[in-house]
């Protein structure tokens, strides 16, 4: 499919959680509303807030106490994730009425490929229809970006909020995107921006005016990708399946006070490893990489990861590697948040594990069960019985925003 021929929407729900709360309780409408984890605790931060609150200078990740000072009339709501999940599903259901090519990116945003649905001129009308249906049926505002590729569509949806519809063509790139700070570019995080600034690259235009080779020298492969995007080039397809390609499973924990004790921190790592192991088990995945994150008291984020030849899924393995990584990474400064993630996930069936003289006896104990399963499958078909690793267990604690994508699985 040629780059020019495509018409893609990026749909971004406007302050999604707060808007869902306002739709649910109309008395909150037109008022500054903030969704916060636990407003009473010191560590509480704003998860999201309504546009009315934003007018007071309240923003996502702001500590609760600071938000109260900026906006004394701010109304706090604790999050009700089930509500958001249902609203998200309803929103994606509307999108799927118009195209099969819908790719959810997170609970409140997604791409839609409408190339085969409309011709160029009608795209804006279709966007207006979708936007007004979501507002009328779900009472939720959203912004839509219309562009020939994902990157431009994503940039476009962010240009006018709330309730915006923005068209971004490739020929607009130089005068619309290039004057913007490079940090505004999708795919440029804090670290990348810092590195670019060291090379006197401050705007998207600065990046675009380099040669592709120079960009690659500064940032490697990622640099080449960003350079192409700065020129409005992005050939990624809208892939409805990508939602099933889970890339990592991780849990993190904000500590109730800045922690400096090594045994206490290692205990947090242990707990997180246990959670990650049980989520992996629930989904029947194994990974080949372990990633550890530390946020220090001064909000400095550091992380370290390692790749392994053998699959990682047992709690003891996750724990062992995560602790080692943590100790290598930690500079003894007080820690505010720790996170453990298992990466490079593989579907069952693609997975192999070389047994060792130390481990095989443990594994061999499962042999009789395995034989029985295979026998039953032979007799009654593959789906009659599966190994325990794939069976969903109830009550495992899971990270909501990461697991919502499973909803799309269930619909099949």
């Amino acid at each position, binding site marked *: 499919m040629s780059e020019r021929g495509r018409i893609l929407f990026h749909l971004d729900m406007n302050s999604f959680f707060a808007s869902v709360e306002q739709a649910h309780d109309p008395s909150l409408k037109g008022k500054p509303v903030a969704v916060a984890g636990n407003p009473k605790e010191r560590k509480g931060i704003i998860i999201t807030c309504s546009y009315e609150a934003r007018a007071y200078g309240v923003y996502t990740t702001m500590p609760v106490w600071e938000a109260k000072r900026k906006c004394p009339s701010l109304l706090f709501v604790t999050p009700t994730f089930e509500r958001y999940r249902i609203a998200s599903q309803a929103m994606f259901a509307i999108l799927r009425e118009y195209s099969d090519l819908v790719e959810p990116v997170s609970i409140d945003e997604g791409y839609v490929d409408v190339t085969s649905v409309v011709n160029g001129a009608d795209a804006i009308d279709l966007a207006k229809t979708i936007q007004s249906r979501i507002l009328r049926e779900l009472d939720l505002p959203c912004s839509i970006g219309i562009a020939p590729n994902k990157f431009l569509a994503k940039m476009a949806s962010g240009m006018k909020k709330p309730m915006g519809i923005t068209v971004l063509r490739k020929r607009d790139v130089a005068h619309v995107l290039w004057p913007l700070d490079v940090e505004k570019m999708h795919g440029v995080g804090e670290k990348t921006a810092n590195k670019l600034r060291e090379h006197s690259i401050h705007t998207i235009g600065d990046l675009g005016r380099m040669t592709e080779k120079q960009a690659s020298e500064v940032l490697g492969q990622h640099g080449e990708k960003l350079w192409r995007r700065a020129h409005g080039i992005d050939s990624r397809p809208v892939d409805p399946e990508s939602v099933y390609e889970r890339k990592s499973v991780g849990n993190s924990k904000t500590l109730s006070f800045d922690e400096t004790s090594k045994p206490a921190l290692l205990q947090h790592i242990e707990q997180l490893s246990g959670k990650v192991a049980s989520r992996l088990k629930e989904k029947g995945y194994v990974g080949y990489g372990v990633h550890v994150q530390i946020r220090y008291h001064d909000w400095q984020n550091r992380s370290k990861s390692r790749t392994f*030849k053998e699959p990682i899924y047992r709690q003891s393995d996750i724990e062992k590697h995560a602790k080692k990584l943590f100790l290598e990474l930690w500079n003894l400064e007080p820690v505010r948040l720790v996170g453990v993630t298992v990466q490079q996930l593989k579907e069952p069936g693609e997975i*192999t594990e070389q047994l060792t*003289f130390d481990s095989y006896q443990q594994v*061999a104990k499962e042999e009789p069960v395995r034989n029985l399963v295979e026998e039953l499958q032979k007799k009654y078909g593959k789906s009659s019985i599966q190994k325990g690793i794939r069976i969903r267990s109830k009550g495992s604690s899971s990270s909501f925003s990461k697991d919502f994508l499973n909803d799309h699985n269930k619909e099949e």
Partner: protein
Amino acid sequence: MKFEVMRDRLLEALNDVMKAVSSKTTVAILTGIKIEAKKEGIYLTGSDADITIQTFIPVEEDGEQIVQLTQTGSIVLQARFFNEIVRKLPTNDVLIEVKNGYQTDVRSGKSEFHLIGQDANDYPLLPQMEEDQSFTMPAELVKSIIRETVFAVSTSESRPVLTGVNWQIRDGELMCVATDSHRLARRSTKLENAPADEYNAVIPGKSLNELNKILEDNSEPVEIVLTSQQILFKAGNVLFYSRLLEGNYPDTSRLIPSEHKTLVVVNGRALHQAIDRASLLAREERNNVVRFTTQGQNAVEISSNSPEIGKVEEQVLAEQIEGEELVISFSAKYMMDALKAIEGHDVQIQFTGVMRPFILKSVHDDAILQLILPVRTY
């Protein structure tokens, strides 16, 4: 020190000694080669502290004069430069002379190098070896023992003792074992002149690989001298010293299953080739796995499946299949290494379960035993 020597003999001796010299050494003098001119001939020594190699060029051999000695003495020269120089000298006659302290002249034809040497007294002495514990084996046997075991040593430093091969002498038998904890290679050899005492040591895999390169494939005797810190191999004009690894080697005898549920006898070369072909689609380290399926009484199927690339199946005729039907997956590389070590045509494979180690050995003798742990698939 002053002597003349035939360049090809000097080069041959240097080649062996260079195998011990490492550019990464932390001891500066070990980047050099020690040259000693004595009445009986020239000694060259190279070392990386773990391995030390000394070669000897006699003044006279089979009535032919190889060295013309004018003055005895010794010097240490930078190994890398000296080796390259000798390699490229224009004639077969080389004159080496130390003058004014450590300045060393190397002359050949009209070419003349002036090298700055170092004091040979600063070079470490050879390890002291009591020679009461020793035995001999033909060079070709030492080489095959090395080839049949050393490939299975661990390349990871997480358990240093596993980076070596365990040599154990007991009851007139030498038992050599290597394992990386995924597979194990064992070779037993009856010794004709075994030492009186029992002996147990772990020789670094790297040392054995270098020794294998130096030894020639012939029946010349190699004398092997054992101490608790070092092992010495004497072969012709070469002395090869290796440090031993510290730590106890794990007892591996209990890992070897004594019974089996499935027995397969197959042509080792045919199986090796089939696995080699099947692994074409499984090149990535992580997926270098093939599946082995028994088919009735006289065939096995080797197959491999890479989701992104494709799949392959091949049937190999078996001479004999006994016991339970079996589907098992294992590393193609480990299997090929093991089959290569056994070399013969009739290989016997004994399986005890899909998640348990299996044995490979020749139908004709038990000298070589290979043990492989399978790969678990989900």
